[in-house]
């Protein structure tokens, strides 16, 4: 009873089984399940995902796959067996390596005039969960480490790039309306922002935001090597229907937005669309 075993390979009940296994509309995104397995979701969304997994065969399978992959990862990075002498020396070698890194790396940081990535804030997208962005003013904003350059990519869920911009120093990007012209209203898009510090893009912590229509968003921090910074957007046509006007305001929810910016009304004014 260590697994959910019973409908595996239910060929005669194929139709029913496949229907059960195909993700439903309320299924969390695979990225969310991945983040949940890695313990990168806040408690509330994590429990929602587990709850869903309890009653959804497709998501349960995805969960098991993620667990298996995580264990494979751990096995892959696990050090190969070494003589005990080396094992005893490992902490000292690590300390020595850290000292060397400090001595060699510090002047380089100063020379670049940049900031040590360690201790820097991760990239935080200033977008709310369930956010709908108008086609004519699809403004993406984020907070990131000081001195970083950014690469932004907006793509469909099947990986087709809709818009891409590299070398941004500003922490915002207005997706050209022409790029979104072919995108149907209501399409779910992924937005990825990658910060590069000292020409080392993988050193920046990243934020994974995923969203599904019927569930609260899930927020987690992860590694750039493992998951992109993603938020799913719904592109809509303007003018917006009046009852949904508020849904088009990209008011930042992040507490990291400085009070000064809030007081000046920088946000929430030029990002609101509609009439």
């Amino acid at each position, binding site marked *: *009873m*260590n*697994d*959910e*075993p*019973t*409908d*595996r*390979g*239910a*060929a*005669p*009940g194929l139709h*029913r*089984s496949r229907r*059960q296994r195909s993700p439903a509309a309320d299924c969390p995104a695979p990225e969310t399940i991945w983040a*949940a397995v890695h*313990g990168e979701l806040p*408690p509330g969304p*994590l*429990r929602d995902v*587990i*709850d869903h*997994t*309890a*009653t*959804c*065969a497709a998501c*349960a399978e995805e*969960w*098991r796959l993620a*667990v298996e992959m995580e264990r494979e990862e751990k096995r892959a990075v696990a050090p190969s067996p070494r003589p005990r002498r080396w094992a005893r020396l490992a902490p000292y070698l690590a300390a020595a390596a850290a000292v060397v890194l400090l001595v060699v790396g510090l002047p380089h940081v100063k020379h670049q005039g940049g900031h040590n990535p360690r201790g820097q804030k991760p990239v935080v997208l200033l977008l709310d969960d369930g956010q709908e962005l108008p086609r004519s003013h699809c403004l993406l904003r984020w907070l990131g480490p000081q001195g970083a350059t950014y690469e932004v990519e907006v793509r469909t869920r099947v990986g087709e790039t809709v818009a891409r911009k590299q070398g941004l120093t500003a922490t915002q990007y207005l997706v050209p309306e022409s790029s979104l012209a072919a995108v149907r209203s209501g399409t779910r898009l992924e937005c990825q922002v990658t910060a590069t510090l000292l020409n080392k893009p993988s050193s920046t912590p990243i934020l994974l935001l995923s969203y599904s229509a019927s569930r609260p968003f899930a927020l987690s921090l992860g590694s750039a090597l493992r998951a992109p910074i993603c938020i799913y957007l719904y592109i809509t046509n303007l003018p917006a229907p009046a009852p949904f006007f508020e849904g088009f305001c990209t008011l930042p929810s992040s507490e990291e937005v400085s009070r000064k910016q809030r007081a000046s009304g920088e946000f929430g004014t030029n990002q609101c669309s509609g009439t």
Partner: protein
Amino acid sequence: MEGERPEVDPAAPQPDPESNCAGAEIGQAIRDCLGRLLRPRRLAVTLHLQGHRVAEAARLLGWSAKKAENLVYRGLDDLRSCLTAKGIRP
């Protein structure tokens, strides 16, 4: 022959349709029963059934290992009772 890649033998006995169908029903029954458990127990049992060890479940859910173990134990007990009530016995 152990360790070699298993080959599909068309002549080998395959699971019969009845047992496959019964398996699917049991799977559905387990999901139904899981859905009826108290939430903490459901969370613990779900992670247990998904192959997590008690320590992993405790870490994920922010519980102590003792609490996770207790909830898995009680949850499995509830699950067993529910399945028995549905006429499914080990």
